[in-house]
Structure formats: C-alpha cells, structure tokens
C-alpha cells in the first residue's frame, strides 16, 4: 500500500498552487484539470510510475497562462503546427511515452479541437518534466478527459455562470442582532432567568458579543431550509445559560 501511496507525490504542494491561483478564469481551468485527475483515480485509472502532481499542476498553470489557449478556444478552427521535436523527446524520455504519443495522434485525427489543446499542453508538460520519468499515457488520458469537454471551455470563455452555491457574503446587521437580543430578553423573562447571579446587562453584553463573533460572517445560502444562523446562536446561548444554572445549583 505504501508503494501505491507513493504513486502520487506532491499532493499538498499541488493543492497549495490551486488555492493560490487568484485569476478566476485560470482558477476554473485549473480546477477542471484537478477534477479530471480525481475522476481518473475514482474510476481506477492509476499512473504506473510515481506521478508528481505538484509539477503537473505547475505545468498546467503555465499552460493556462499561455495566451494561445484563449486563441484556440475562441477560434475552434485554429490549429498549430505540431512540435515534432517535442514529440520525439517525449517518445525517448517518458515512461509510456510511445503509447501516450500514439493516443495523442489518434485524438488529433478524430478531434482537431481537442487534439490542438492537448498538443499545446504537451509542450508545457515537457518543459516541467524534462528530468523526470512520468507516465505520459496517464497524463494524456487525464488531460483528454478534461479537454474533451468543449462545452465547458466555450462556456467559461463566454463567462457563463456554472457556480454551485451563492457566493454573496451576508453579515448579520446590527438591527438583526438587536432583534435577537429582544427575543432572548423575552425568553429570559418567561423563564424567570433574572434570578441568575450575573446581571442582566452583563449577560446581554456577553450575548451581543457572542452573537457577533460566532454568527459573522455567514454565507447567504446557509439559510437554505432549516439552517438558521440566528437560531444556531440562540441554541448555543441557551446551552451556555444551562451551564450557568447548573453551576449555580451545584453551589
């Protein structure tokens, strides 16, 4: 199992690179590759030799920064002259290189667009892995799963919204906190909690500060369904009160 574990190296560095990619479009493309990689693993396509995921992600970052990519994506009919020198280098150097290049050539015959994308990516991979053996067939298979999604690429460059969750940050406004305080105050009165040993004003100040610190900020979509941040704050504070009462009863 340890040998299997060592097949994918540099995972954490790669994830760090993904996280630090601030350009939105570049970030989306990088995650797209990452997803293709996860998908390959999840369906049992594993590299045969140690695969440096960190270097792979770095080479893809370099690839996505290449302005020619946008040119290819915005003009599907565009094509590039194949870099045969790179091809030969791949054949000679990389593990499974011959099979990888054969697969790439087959893809290019069948699909000019995907083939062009992969050919461009190929050059960046070579620049990163020049001194290392990698499973080139695994890389091409992984990239092919990504580059075949033309709809994704077109939509991304057209600026279509494919997000999963609402991203708007929403903060509890002061009036909402005040409402919470009023609700809690009413609850305390109904429960005769004024008999607590600590003063009401001190308790309310604690609640106010607690509400601010634990409920802010929360994301707007967190209010979906039954999850209500105000209710969460309320429940937590009731727990605190319960503990205060327990302490008081023990003493």
């Amino acid at each position, binding site marked *: *199992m340890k040998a*299997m*574990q060592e*097949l*994918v190296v540099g*995972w*954490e560095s790669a*994830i*760090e690179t*993904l*996280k630090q990619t601030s350009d939105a479009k570049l*970030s*989306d493309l990088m*995650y*797209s590759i*990452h*997803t293709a990689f*996860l*998908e390959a*693993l*999840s369906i*049992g396509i*594993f590299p045969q030799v140690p695969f440096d995921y960190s270097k792979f992600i770095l080479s893809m970052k370099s690839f996505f920064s290449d302005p020619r990519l946008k040119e290819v994506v915005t003009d599907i009919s565009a094509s590039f002259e194949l870099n045969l020198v790179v091809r030969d280098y791949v054949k000679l150097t990389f593990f499974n290189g011959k099979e990888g290049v054969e697969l790439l050539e087959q893809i290019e015959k069948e699909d000019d667009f995907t083939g062009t994308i992969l050919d461009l990516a190929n050059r960046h991979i070579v620049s990163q892995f020049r001194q290392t053996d990698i499973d080139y067939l695994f890389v091409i298979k992984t990239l092919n799963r990504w580059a075949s*999604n033309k*709809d*994704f*690429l*077109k*939509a*991304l460059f057209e600026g*279509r*919204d*494919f*997000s*999963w*969750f*609402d*991203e708007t940050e929403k903060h509890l406004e002061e009036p909402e906190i005040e409402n919470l305080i009023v609700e809690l105050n009413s609850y305390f009165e109904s429960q005769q909690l004024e008999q607590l040993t600590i003063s009401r004003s001190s308790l309310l100040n604690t609640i106010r500060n607690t509400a601010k610190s634990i409920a802010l900020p929360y*994301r707007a*979509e*967190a209010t*979906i*369904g*039954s*999850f209500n941040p105000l209710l969460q704050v309320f429940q937590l504070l009731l727990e605190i009160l319960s503990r205060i009462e327990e302490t008081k009863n023990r003493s």
Partner: protein
Amino acid sequence: MLPKVRVREAIETMKVCETAEEMAECFERIAKEIEREFPGWRFVKLRGTDGSYIFQGQIKGQLLVVSAEGVIYKKTDAPEAIRLQFTPQGALFEVDYSKLDEIFRRAL
C-alpha cells in the same frame, strides 16, 4: 434557471431522504440532470475513507459531502478539504470536515 438554483433544490430534496446512501443517490441523479441541462457543468462522485460521499465540481472545486451519518456539508474552493489516500478498496479521499460548512443535520 441557473445551475446553482438546481443545486439548491437538490439539497432541499436530499433533506427528506432517510440514509446517507439515499441522499447521495438523490444528489447524483439531479446532478446528472443538471449536466444535461447545462452543457459544460460537471461533477465527479468520489468516496471518502469514512464511508462518506463526495461530489466535486469542475469549477473552483466546489464540494458537497454527505457523511456516513447523513450530515450534509459544502464548501466552495476548498481542495485541501479532501486528501487522496490509496486503500485496499482503491483511491479514496480523507475528508477534513473542519474545512467544510455544515448545512444540514437531521434532528435526532
């Protein structure tokens, strides 16, 4: 209707499911519908080392996780929340729940 609206509806539907497996099946079914409705939108279904179900999006690595206990978590842009592990059962992912936001837990 935007994909995120469909995802929100999917989460609401999951809440009435009995088990984590049913929740995962529910999300997967609706996610496949979203893929058909919005060409280019994609997800990957992964399995956690603890029996959880992980759905990751192609853009920004959005994560929707259903724990084995049926608790639903989500996060946008948190690739570090899942860590690749090779096990006798294959490539699984260890989930760091502290990096995710809990959005649903059935009352006991």
